[in-house]
């Protein structure tokens, strides 16, 4: 593998392109005619072109030199994604403040500078500030902390 960045980008495009064609065909989006195009016309053309671009890019990458991919930041990737997903899953259930605390603590773990005595005040501070700004100030319709305060 001489040019891994281009190779993977090509494969990514190829995958998205083929998926678009597959979904369009399986769901039966009509292609229609040039005069009266159906909902499938654009997606199938786009998917085909994208797959082609991906194929060319991946093919060319085998012959050209490129920088290595480098380390993947797996820990930050997982923690930040997980934190955001948990925020989404909990905000309407346990309220804004606890959801923020979860998000801040989880994502803080991704930093090598993580210290609990920093992360906890940060989480609480952001929770209080957000409740004040978004719920009290801007009137967003979401409970702040229903379990403890009952609202």
């Amino acid at each position: 593998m001489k040019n891994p960045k281009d190779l993977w980008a090509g494969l990514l495009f190829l995958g998205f392109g083929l998926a678009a064609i597959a979904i369009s065909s399986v769901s039966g989006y009509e292609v229609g005619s040039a005069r009266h195009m159906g909902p499938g016309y654009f997606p199938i053309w786009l998917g085909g072109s994208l797959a082609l671009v991906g194929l060319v890019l991946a093919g060319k990458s085998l012959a050209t030199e490129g920088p290595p991919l480098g380390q993947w930041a797996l820990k930050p990737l997982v923690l930040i994604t997980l934190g955001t997903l948990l925020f989404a899953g909990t905000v309407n259930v346990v309220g804004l403040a606890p959801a923020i605390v979860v998000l801040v603590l989880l994502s803080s773990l991704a930093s090598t500078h993580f210290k609990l005595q920093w992360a906890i005040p940060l989480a609480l501070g952001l929770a209080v500030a957000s409740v004040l700004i978004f719920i009290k100030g801007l009137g967003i319709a979401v409970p702040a902390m229903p379990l403890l305060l009952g609202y």
Partner: protein
Amino acid sequence: MLRTCVLAATAALALLGATPASAVYPEKPITLIVPYSPGGASDQAARSLAAATAAKLGPNQLVVVNKDGAGGIIGATEVYKAKPDGYTLLLARVGTHTTVPALRSVPYDPLNWAILGMLETNPVTCAVGKDSAYKTYQDLINAIKATPEKITYSSAGPGTILHLGAIILLEKAGFTDPQKAAIHIPYKGGGPAALAAVKGEVDFVCQSYNEMSAHVKSGALRALIVLGDDKLTDFPDVPTSKELGIPGMEIAIGWSGLLGPPKMDPEAVKFWVNLLSEVKEDKAWQDTVRRLGSVPAIWPPEQTKTFMQTALDKMKKIATDLGIKL
């Protein structure tokens, strides 16, 4: 420092929105969900209602929240499933409660709601550009007969009351296949649809009068027919379908109503029915609604319910008869 600033903003906002407290309903702000995007006809209906009720409820006590998506179904479903305590209401539209339920299944029963009342109606008007050769509705129909499948018309989208209105009108004009007699060109929303007729990109447009009143007033569009029985206040010369001897077009009308989730707290229902009957007499509200190009039409719950039921039944029948589906 950021926080200081934001807190200052919060304080300023709190000052702007200071509210009087009271013990009975409503004791906190009421959310009025508009199932479409800001700036549209439904949003305007909601905001003029909010402005008209501010004196009674206190400023900022009826909070308009736009939750658009899926042709209004997302916002409507949310209110349908909301706590029936009277603090979540829906600005219901012809789309959420007549046309879309007539054409496909929706996650709620369009008639099982706490009906607080109709608010306003939006007559559908068909118009041509100022340079068009068609001076009257009959000219237009003759042209469609003379050149079948050539004349184009724009609407705010497939399956809207405007698209259906045009199809019903063509059916009543005697075309055997009203979906093919003229070519329907859908646009993304009423504004672009009306503009297409102004520019002459299409031959005519069927659209809520409120979304093209500016063009008709400036002379860029010439209104040929108003569907239904109500005349346009601005243009009494434009004939209604009833005057032209076309019966049964009153179902092709846009409307906005105020609904709550099923089994809504009876206290809250009573409060709103009373409040709406006060708003009905409010001259400033009437003027605002008319300026928006709509017809003020606050009806009591029973009348609203009968209307909704009839409209839905008729629309379902028309959809089946003509084979229209989404």
